[in-house]
């Protein structure tokens, strides 16, 4: 069985929360393993807040989010109309310097890359398409 949910949230921090809450609800109703569902909630928060803060730059343009769960794979697609921005090309974050020199920038994307099984970015029809896949039962 394939379960799909589509929503459009405002490009604001309130919209980010709305999308995170919606996935939590989606996960519960589809009986995703709650032990690991936080990975998707965190990834949604990171990607969407990045779009709101840096991509949309205050324009509040809506962001389309689609969740699907089929064949043991959770796929989340995020589409926004901001300027082209490929988060996969962001520089690697600083994860080793001492406290006083540590820079927190870039950690969000790096966490998403490590917590999801696959992530893809594509610029299509003047929109950014970001797709992340998570297999709840995959061996890690």
């Amino acid at each position, binding site marked *: 069985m394939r379960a799909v949910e589509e929503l459009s949230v405002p490009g604001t*921090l*309130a919209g*980010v*929360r709305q999308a*995170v809450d919606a996935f939590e609800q989606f996960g519960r109703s589809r009986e995703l393993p709650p*032990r690991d569902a*936080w*990975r998707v*909630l*965190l990834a949604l*928060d*990171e990607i*969407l*807040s990045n779009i709101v803060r840096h991509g949309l730059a205050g324009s509040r343009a809506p962001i389309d989010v689609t969740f699907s769960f089929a064949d043991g794979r959770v796929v989340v697609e995020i589409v926004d109309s901001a300027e082209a921005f490929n988060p996969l090309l962001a520089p690697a*974050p*600083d*994860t*080793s310097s*001492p*406290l*006083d020199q*540590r820079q*927190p920038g870039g*950690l*969000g994307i*790096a*966490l998403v890359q*490590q*917590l999801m099984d696959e992530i893809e970015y594509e610029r299509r029809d003047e929109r950014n398409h970001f797709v992340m896949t998570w297999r709840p039962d995959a061996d890690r």
Partner: protein
Amino acid sequence: MQIGETRAGAVVTVAPAGRIDTTTAPVLEQHLTALLAAGERRIVVDFSGVDYISSAGLRVMLLLARGLGGGKGSLALCGLGEAVRHVFQLAGFLPLFTVCDSRDAAVHRVGSQ
């Protein structure tokens, strides 16, 4: 976000609950900034009620550690569940903090410095 606060001698224990993410991290930041402004210098953060922490929350922890002068002795963390510990580890944050197994151990650690 709910944030519990308990004092034992000179040690203040802060226990946020729920998610620490883009929308809640500013609330935690304000709470911790107020403690620093009030002169608190021995702080324990208990994560046992925290579901997960995003990069926004990691930033707040970094600011707290710096606000305490970077001395590991004046700040200890406890109650890190699987999700929180995993994120700290991925971000390379574990070496920056004193992490204790229990709240008692954390309070004792910062209280005895």
